[in-house]
């Protein structure tokens, strides 16, 4: 037992110093520096993939497969990074994705979209997602319901609503142009991956380069100080949840594109996946510290893990055990290395 570290396991952990960030180079440099452990874990994972699956892993198609898989949950995780950094939590993301996907694919919406443009579906999904987020935010900030409980309630309600609207049937999309747009590639990169990248970069800028981002840290780190500094903590909280809701709406659009369906079962357990990616990335669950780059690494670690497993034909139960072990190792690595590079 070493006494200097005895303090607070969860809180002292991973408090890296504010790195000096300047420009895009700074973005990459600092992201890599603070996330050494995650990068190392990801590289180890990839090395494992190459060793066990050789070319089948290191293939460009396989990499795109990993990225496409990461895209949907990635967008949700970016939004979740904001909420968690702001001291909150949202358990309803999966349900919001489901509800948005269902609402955007009802006969009525599709009919409208066919009559005008498929973009109508996209707006519907974003609107529904954003509205759900707004409700969460208002309940939490103004109703003062604990975030965990408020979003647990939304989880139940949104999924129930999705089932009622869809009558528990999978709704198939047949709006012309919709699938074509999202199935396309830009310079060989699938549109879904491009969207993920844009959201990640946009999220990074928003969190690290704008007053909105600064205030998010303040609201999460010390809400009382934020209030005394003149920040409207409650309004900001509402904005954070609405932002996450929008991300869920966008994720719903991406999922509709990927599956050509909307369904009340979409997004199952996304809450756990997203929170896990965010936390493994180094965002503090208690708020006040958050990193978009870490979240992206977290998402990639999880998706690469399942890809390597898929390629290797391991026994399914053994996969679960291995997954647990790998998560712990990744986190320990990140801690040890972040501390070294930090101090």
């Amino acid at each position, binding site marked *: 037992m070493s006494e200097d570290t005895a303090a607070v396991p969860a809180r002292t952990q991973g408090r890296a110093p504010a790195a000096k960030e300047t420009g895009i180079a700074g973005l990459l440099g600092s992201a890599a520096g603070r996330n050494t452990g995650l990068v190392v874990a990801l590289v180890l994972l990839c090395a494992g993939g190459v060793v066990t699956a050789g070319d*089948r892993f290191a*293939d460009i*198609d*396989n990499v795109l*497969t*990993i990225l*496409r*898989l990461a895209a*949907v*949950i990635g967008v949700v995780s970016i939004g979740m990074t904001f909420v968690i950094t702001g001291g909150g939590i949202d358990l309803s993301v999966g349900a919001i994705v489901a509800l948005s996907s269902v609402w955007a694919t009802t006969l009525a919406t599709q009919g409208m979209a066919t009559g005008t443009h498929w973009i109508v579906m996209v707006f519907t999904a974003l609107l529904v997602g954003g509205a759900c987020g707004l409700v969460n935010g208002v309940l939490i900030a103004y109703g003062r319901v604990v975030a965990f409980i408020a979003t647990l309630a939304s989880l139940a309600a949104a999924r129930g609503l999705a*089932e009622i609207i869809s009558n*528990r*049937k*999978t709704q*198939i999309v047949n709006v012309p142009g919709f*699938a074509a747009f999202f199935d396309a590639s830009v310079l060989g990169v699938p549109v879904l991956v491009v969207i993920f990248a844009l959201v990640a970069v946009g999220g990074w800028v928003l969190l690290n380069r704008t007053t909105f981002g600064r205030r998010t840290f303040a609201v999460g780190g010390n809400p009382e100080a934020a209030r005394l500094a003149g920040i409207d903590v409650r309004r900001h909280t509402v904005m954070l949840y609405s932002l996450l809701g929008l991300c869920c709406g966008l994720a719903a659009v991406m*999922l509709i594109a*990927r*599956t*050509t*369906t909307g*369904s*009340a*079962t*979409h997004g*199952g*357990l*996304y809450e756990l*996946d997203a929170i896990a990616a965010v936390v493994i990335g180094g965002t503090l669950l208690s708020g006040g510290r958050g990193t978009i780059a870490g979240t992206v690494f977290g998402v990639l670690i999880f*998706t690469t893990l*399942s*890809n390597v*497993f*898929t*390629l290797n*034909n391991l026994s*399914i139960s053994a*996969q*679960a055990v291995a997954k647990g072990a790998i998560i712990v190792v990744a986190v320990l690595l990140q801690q040890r290395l972040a501390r070294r590079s930090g101090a």
Partner: protein
Amino acid sequence: GNTPQNTGGGTNQGGARVANDEPGKKVVIGFSAPAADHGWMAAITNAAKAEAGKYSDVELKVVEGTNDVNLQISQVETFINDKVDAIVLLPFDGAALTPVALKAMKAGITVINVDREFDSPFAARSTVLGDNYGMGVSAGTYVCDRLKGKSDAVVAEIAGIDSLPLTQDRSKGFADALSGCGLKVANRVAAEFTVESGERAAANLLQAARKIDAIWNHDDDQGVGVAAAIKNSGRGEFFMVGGAGSANVMREIKADNGPHKATVIYPSTQGADGIRLARLAVQGKALGDLVEVEVPREVQLFAPVVTKDNVDRYLPTAFES
């Protein structure tokens, strides 16, 4: 040798053994199914693996079961990248996995769709289906038979995961068959295909209805819990019909010492059948007992009612939940 060793307890007791079993060109098959979060689903994967193990010319790749369509799509994509010969796919949601199945077919991979149907006929070479609606009809018909003449009989239903289309098909078949003899479902609860959820749902159901004449439980795996709840309640005025057809329930039917008087089979061998079909289709062989020289487009399995009288016939292929 390549002839399947059938040492009892196997899953293909009823299957035909013909020249088809002779080793042919090597076939790599990818297999993906939803999360094995209940006994039947676990049995599907286990049976598929066991079946593949019997053929020296089959290499099976089994991936982690998942209820996330996004992940399942990416698993199929990985199979496509991997250039497997065939994919046996039990999709979490048939419609949602259709695009990627189409992609696989386009890439020249033989896709065998199992249990939950794609919404495009081009997405699979062949489809192996259970008969969910038929299951409900079989159960309802049996209940009608046993309750003959009791027009005021109280019939209860313990459904499986209510958000799945298959559950609705089963319930619809059950309701349709009951209405044929003037009965209807008085109480309906839904469980989640697990022992624990079955116990919980049944405990509440038994409170909701003071007197019951018949219960149909969609799933024998959750049925273990249902039976435990019935035992706890000390009630016994009704008989129970199971679903899916686990070995457990069949033994109980055979012993005739519990509430179960019958069960309706929903074959857990579908995955295994899918493996066989995939192998044959890739090797260009046909089904032995058919005159047809190609593997058929669709195979729909029958949902027979198992009672004390015919249980011995079905027990060997039943799944151990």
